[in-house]
């Protein structure tokens, strides 16, 4: 019953979305605002119905029967609602219509908002049509089974339960960026005002994407049992490409907003970000590649996705080709300037995104030509990493360069101590950590960014001291935190990659292993059962500095899915994680178990860096909201002049 209600609500949402796009391109107004909110609310209600079906285990619903089971804890039944193709498509629709509803609530009513809601309505309509006619999560199953298949055990984990919603908030959030770009192109006005109103949406989507990607990495790190967190797997690359383009977009929007420049390029990136999101979805869901994310592989769905991608991308590009030549160039600037530096940023980030794209799709195209190649970590480490390192070398300079034209010598005077310290420390790191010469560029670049950004921050605080620190604009805080986050990430990622150590021991009960001044005594295994799995738990006492603690790394066997997973034990230390995973018992000696002990130095810097990047994005967003209030107050004092400022003209009248 509830499933049918959900189905009905999704159809109502479809009708609402279709009317939303109709009104968006015609009269707009209050009715459009209400319809856009209605689309969001209806989709949300449909989504709640699906969650209800999963929580109450209505096995007559196909998706529930395949991805939920009575043994599953309730939180994972909720997560299972989006841990499958159909449910995740409903989540996609929910987030897409949710952005539309949010825009209807928060954006000032004018022709830009109306057209943006219209385009968003079109995208939502297309997504709902795909959902309802090609992958309905509400489809019934007859006869209904007594119990269901359950969520993939690897996904039964709190981090990865949150990973899809965050990732989609970013991925699908780019749809509204696309819509507002298309709306600006339709209106023929890509100006400072447009940039100012676009930026918050990019910041929300991109920061959420950052967190979503980081959650996926954290999950891979501790759940897959061997301690890697980024594999340059096509699926990861699929989310990384929109991230890179989004990062470029955030920076080029600054030029457009502050100076009115780079308008054509900025709007191109805004269109591109969502196209890459759709491309990623196509790659993951069409079955052209295999991965843990390719739940239900169906070539027909792949074709529909590809068609949607082509139509949306081609029409946006056509619109772009029509409008872009008429967009005005910004005021002139010298190459050595903030503008110049941001052009450089965009050059590197877009070439980086192109590199990741090439590395991801080449094996698929090669396969079509019967050439079988693989592209993985070594390729990206030798191409992408150095490219980004060069970009980051410019970061502290860019942050302090003045607009229009910059003098180099004051920058050098201010920044040489940071450069010197970074240089000395990176050489020192080589002697302390050793292992590989690659540690030097990593620490050099990372530390240079952290110290250079810190120098800039100190200069902005000025002689006023601590009192001024908290009076700095939130946008400065956002920039500073995000850039320090990048620096810490680079130091952490390089050190972890270069200096991770791992060893596998074969230990019988009572035997000890010794590694990096830690003692690990294996005291055999015991059984432990969870709600829907059997576990083999190792008892290992760790002694370090005279202190002993006991840890229990596990192997779990999920009977419904007949899959095993590992649950590692991690001890945090100042230097990094000590990571213990229980392997198999030796074939010929049943009491002896393989135990993998690893050290992942500075791994928390990787997570912390990513978190700071996202936090920086959210702080920049907060500065927008605060400023918007201030502008609104100012507008309230002098109402008539501002109110009719823009909008009003029919589409395409001004170019």
């Amino acid at each position: 019953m509830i499933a049918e209600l959900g189905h009905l609500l999704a159809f109502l949402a479809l009708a609402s979305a279709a009317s939303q796009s109709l009104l968006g391109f015609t009269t707009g107004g209050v009715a459009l605002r209400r319809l856009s909110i209605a689309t969001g609310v209806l989709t949300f209600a449909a989504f709640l119905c699906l969650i209800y079906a999963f929580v109450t285990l209505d096995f007559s619903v196909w998706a529930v029967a395949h991805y939920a089971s009575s043994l599953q804890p309730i939180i994972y039944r909720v997560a299972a609602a989006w841990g499958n193709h159909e449910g995740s498509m409903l989540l996609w629709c929910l987030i897409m219509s949710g952005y539309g509803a949010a825009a209807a609530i928060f954006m000032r009513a004018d022709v830009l908002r109306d057209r943006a809601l219209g385009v968003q309505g079109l995208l939502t309509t297309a997504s709902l049509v795909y959902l309802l006619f090609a992958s309905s999560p509400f489809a019934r199953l007859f006869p209904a089974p007594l119990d269901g298949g359950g969520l993939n055990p690897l996904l039964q984990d709190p981090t990865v339960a949150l990973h899809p919603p965050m990732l989609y908030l970013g991925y699908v959030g780019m749809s509204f960026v696309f819509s507002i770009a298309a709306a600006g192109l339709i209106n023929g006005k890509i100006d400072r005002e447009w940039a100012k109103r676009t930026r918050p949406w990019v910041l929300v989507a991109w920061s959420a994407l950052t967190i979503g990607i980081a959650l996926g990495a954290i999950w891979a790190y501790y759940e897959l049992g061997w301690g890697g967190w980024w594999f340059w797997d096509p699926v990861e690359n699929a989310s990384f490409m929109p991230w890179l383009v989004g990062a470029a977009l955030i920076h080029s929007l600054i030029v457009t907003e502050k100076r009115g420049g780079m308008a054509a390029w900025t709007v191109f990136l805004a269109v591109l970000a969502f196209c890459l999101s759709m491309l990623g979805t196509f790659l993951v869901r069409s079955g052209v590649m295999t991965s843990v994310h390719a739940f239900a592989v169906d070539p027909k769905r792949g074709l529909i996705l590809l068609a949607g991608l082509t139509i949306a991308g081609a029409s946006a590009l056509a619109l772009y080709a029509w409008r872009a030549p008429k967009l005005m160039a910004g005021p002139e600037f010298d190459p050595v300037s903030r503008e110049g530096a941001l052009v450089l940023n965009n050059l590197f980030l877009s070439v980086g995104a192109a590199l990741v794209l090439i590395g991801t799709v080449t094996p698929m195209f090669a396969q079509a030509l019967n050439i079988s190649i693989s592209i993985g970590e070594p390729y990206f480490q030798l191409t992408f990493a150095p490219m980004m390192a060069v970009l980051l070398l410019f970061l502290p300079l860019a942050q302090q360069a003045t607009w229009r034209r910059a003098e180099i010598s004051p920058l050098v005077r201010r920044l040489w101590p940071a450069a010197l310290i970074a240089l000395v420390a990176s050489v020192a790191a080589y002697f302390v950590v050793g292992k590989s010469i690659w540690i030097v560029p990593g620490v050099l670049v990372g530390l240079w960014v952290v110290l250079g950004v810190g120098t800039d921050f100190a200069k902005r605080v000025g002689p006023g001291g601590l009192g001024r620190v908290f009076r700095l604009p939130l946008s400065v805080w956002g920039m500073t935190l995000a850039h320090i986050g990048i620096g810490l990430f680079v130091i952490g990622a390089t050190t972890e990659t270069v200096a991770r150590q791992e060893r596998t021991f074969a230990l019988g009960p009572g035997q000890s292993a010794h590694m990096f001044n830690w003692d690990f005594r294996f005291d055999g295994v015991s059984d432990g059962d969870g709600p829907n799995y059997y576990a083999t738990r190792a008892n290992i006492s760790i002694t370090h500095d005279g202190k002993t603690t006991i840890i229990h790394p596990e192997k779990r066997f999920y009977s419904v899915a007949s899959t095993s997973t590992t649950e590692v034990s991690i001890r945090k230390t100042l230097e990094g994680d000590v990571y213990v995973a229980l392997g198999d018992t030796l074939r010929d000696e049943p009491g002896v178990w393989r135990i993998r002990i690893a050290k992942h130095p500075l791994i928390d810097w990787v997570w912390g860096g990513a978190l700071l990047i996202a936090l920086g994005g959210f702080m920049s967003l907060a500065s927008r909201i605060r400023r918007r209030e201030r502008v609104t107050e100012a507008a309230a004092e002098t109402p008539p002049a501002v109110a009719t400022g823009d909008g009003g003209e029919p589409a395409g009248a001004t170019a």
Partner: protein
Amino acid sequence: MIAALVMAIAVSGDLPLADPEKEARAQSLMREIRCVVCENEPVSQSTADIAVDMRRVIRQQVMEGDTNDEVRKYFSDRYGQFVLFRPPVTGLGLLLWVFPFLLLLGAGGAIAARLSRTRKKHLAPLADDQVDDSAR
């Protein structure tokens, strides 16, 4: 006694080599050689039986003093280029390696040419707050 000795010498799939340098080299090779039955996994992280075997072969060859390239060639001769996550530096592969840098140089060169033709020394620098003030 003899059994224990044999066990110590035989290379096991998952027990490390005695020489830490060789072990590190073996581990880095395991990260770039693909498990042939898995989905997108290097042998270093796979639990499949064949991955255990492949790890053993890699350790064996590294212990016997084979260079990284020799180990890579051993696997690509048997399983094709597919088995290496590091694409070859010949033919199509070479293009793959140089293309990103060509793109960077090409696009960067075009932009630089356009911007530097018109150096604008006469422009006065604008500080952040001046730009903010002029924003609407």
